[in-house]
């Protein structure tokens, strides 16, 4: 008897493709995405932090440090913007251009090697004369600045052995009273070898020394937020958009599903036998779905303003632009899903699979700064990523509406394409 019950249930599951996918494909798909995001953290594909490096010192020591940073595998260090067709040989970053780039979201962190660093690169205790590094960062990425600060200490230790030893010798002379002539000769010989080694490392002719000998605090670092200094939490607008868009996609899918309900009840036939064309009907459904999405996002952001003190009211024009285009794109997406599905159950299964995948890849579930470059690039194929990007520009970076060009172009054009596809697939509801 129990065997029959099991067999009946198995046959039902096997023939319900929606339930089958929800049971097996969806968990595996999600496991894979999480595996790519988190599982790679112990491998060489750990998400790397992009850092803009500004050398204000221009000494051998600072150049050695820059070269060390460029070699550091956990960083993507850049001393100048990438070359373009218009600007094939871009100038090196200055403190001002690097700060502007961080503000624009081109990189989460900039490191400024101060003038005077070469003369007094490291210190062994408080009160010692030393230059202070500046780390300018976007606190929307709370990890980047800490990674750069840590890597800076490491690089100083590993890329400048001669400088380290020389400074140690000077410290010894000052604090202990100096060496005997024999000791001084031996020390000078050792320093000469270290300088040779440092020169070889800088020239890239010796194997990289990745020994993690963190002495801590050898260089002074001052970390400064350059984006959102006065904002309460960088992640509020991020998740208001991220979570909002994810649920918008579900709502749009359900709203589009009313077509299936009406088809099943016969109401769709009745409507289409009146003076309503399929295009008019779909446009009506699209309008409703987009309006619903618009109101949902507005409520989400108003709630964020009320509870999390998001500065909503001084960003209303940008919010309206982003919300209108996001609502249009997700509504079109819902229409397409509904026109592809043949039953409500099928729609529920497909929409859950696609929406959760898009949300995971697009940054609705976990922040982009913990994703690898590849994952971030894949995320560009999702609405979530573009919507989050646009809302961050408005609410976090205080950028003007004209900066939303890429988001407007992508969301509007993809919305149009999806709607046209929905219209194409909806032909099955027209006269046969």
């Amino acid at each position, binding site marked *: 008897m129990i065997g029959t019950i099991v067999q009946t249930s198995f046959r039902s599951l096997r023939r319900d493709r929606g339930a089958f996918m929800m049971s097996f494909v969806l968990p595996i798909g999600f496991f894979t995405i999480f595996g790519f995001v988190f599982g790679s953290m112990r491998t060489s594909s750990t998400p790397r932090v992009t850092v803009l490096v500004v050398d204000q010192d221009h000494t051998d020591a600072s150049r050695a440090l820059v070269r060390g940073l460029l070699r550091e595998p956990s960083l993507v260090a850049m001393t100048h913007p990438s070359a373009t067709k218009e600007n094939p040989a871009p100038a090196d970053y200055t403190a001002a251009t690097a700060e502007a780039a961080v503000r624009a979201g081109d990189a989460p962190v900039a490191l400024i090697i101060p003038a005077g660093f070469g003369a007094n690169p490291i210190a062994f205790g408080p009160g010692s004369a030393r230059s202070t590094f500046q780390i300018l960062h976007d606190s929307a990425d709370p990890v980047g600045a800490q990674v750069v600060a840590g890597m800076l200490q490491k690089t100083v230790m590993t890329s400048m052995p001669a400088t380290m030893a020389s400074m140690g010798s000077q410290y010894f002379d000052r604090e202990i009273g100096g060496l005997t002539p024999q000791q001084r000769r031996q020390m000078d010989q050792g320093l000469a070898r270290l300088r040779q080694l440092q020169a070889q490392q800088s020239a890239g002719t010796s194997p990289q020394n990745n020994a993690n000998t963190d002495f801590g605090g050898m260089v002074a670092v001052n970390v400064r937020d350059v984006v959102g200094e006065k904002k309460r939490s960088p992640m509020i607008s991020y998740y208001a958009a991220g979570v909002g868009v994810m649920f918008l996609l579900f709502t749009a899918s359900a709203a589009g599903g009313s077509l299936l309900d009406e088809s099943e*009840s*016969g*109401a769709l*036939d*009745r*409507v*289409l*036998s*009146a*003076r*309503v064309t399929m295009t008019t009907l779909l446009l009506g459904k699209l309008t409703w779905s987009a309006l619903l999405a618009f109101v949902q996002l507005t409520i989400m952001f108003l709630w964020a303003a009320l509870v999390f003190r998001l500065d909503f009211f001084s960003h209303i024009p940008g919010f309206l632009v982003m919300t209108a285009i996001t609502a249009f794109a997700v509504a079109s997406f819902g229409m397409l899903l509904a026109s592809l599905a043949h039953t409500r159950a099928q729609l529920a299964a497909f929409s859950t699979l696609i929406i959760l995948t898009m949300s995971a890849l697009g940054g609705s579930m976990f922040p982009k700064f913990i994703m690898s470059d590849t994952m971030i690039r894949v995320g560009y194929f999702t609405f979530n990523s573009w919507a989050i990007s646009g809302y961050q520009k408005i609410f976090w970076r205080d950028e003007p509406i004209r900066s939303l060009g890429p988001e407007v172009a992508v969301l509007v054009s993809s919305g149009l394409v999806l709607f046209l596809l929905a219209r194409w697939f909806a032909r099955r509801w027209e*006269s*046969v």
Partner: protein
Amino acid sequence: MLAEQEKSEAVPARVLPLRVTGIVKRFGDVNAVSGISFEIRPGSCYGLLGPNGAGKSTLIRSIVGRIHLDAGNIAVFGHPVSSAEARADLGWVPQELAVYPLLTCRENLQAFGRYQGLSGTKLTDSIAWCLDWASLADRANSPVKTLSGGMKRRLNMAAGLIHRPRLVLMDEPTVGVDPQSRNRIFEMVEALRNDGTTIIYTTHYMEEAERLCDWIAIIDHGQIIAEGTKEDLVSRAFGARRSVTMHMGATNIDLAAWAAARGGAVQDFVVHCSVEKPAEIAELLESATRDGLEVLDVTMQRPNLESVFLHLTGKDLRA
């Protein structure tokens, strides 16, 4: 077949509520409709009967413009069925409850009225008329899901008439309703007919067709196999003969062949045949006894539409 009808050839096309001319619809290798032609007179109630799979639904969907025909054409008051004029003149009451369950009766009528291009006073007046016609005025603001089955059916009918069409197609409007509600629906249809509206009525219930329809077509295998008034159909099928129904006991004998040899048909050990005179029943009984058949009971009656349908299609209408 058209020549047999008592229809005036002189009726101009723009006055003729419906003219179906040689329509053909194929689905793959299946001929769902094979060259059907008929006309409907103004103000008549045209009954369309046919067993499941006969092509009735395809014909209905063709008339409401939901099917692209492979051949032939359909005109509503002289206009092609897909034209705006035809849509304005044609109302459709589908078999399904094609209304919005979460909306109230009034909201449903508003929606379908607007889909038909109504607005303002015209829409308001039409909603009031529909609610009154369907006896739903006191439930105007009730959501559909709270209505009884009969009320839902009446609202379904009202939604098809919201634009006050001159020709209404009702596809089994009494499916699943209790006898009392069915009677109310009959009264609605009769009231409509008395107002001069032309009606096409499909049903699986012979008594409905006999009560409401003044012209009946029987469709089978995608063709109209008989058409006329009820009396015409009975007379053509049986003449002066009476129909005989014989319930037989279980047997291994080929009952179908036995019935066919006597001009009849069999369904589930029930033989349907006809006799010229009542005395012929005795011969039938003797023949059955001689052939080893057990006759459980015999009834004789004047033939009705059910008998005609069975005679022509070999199937019970509700089979």
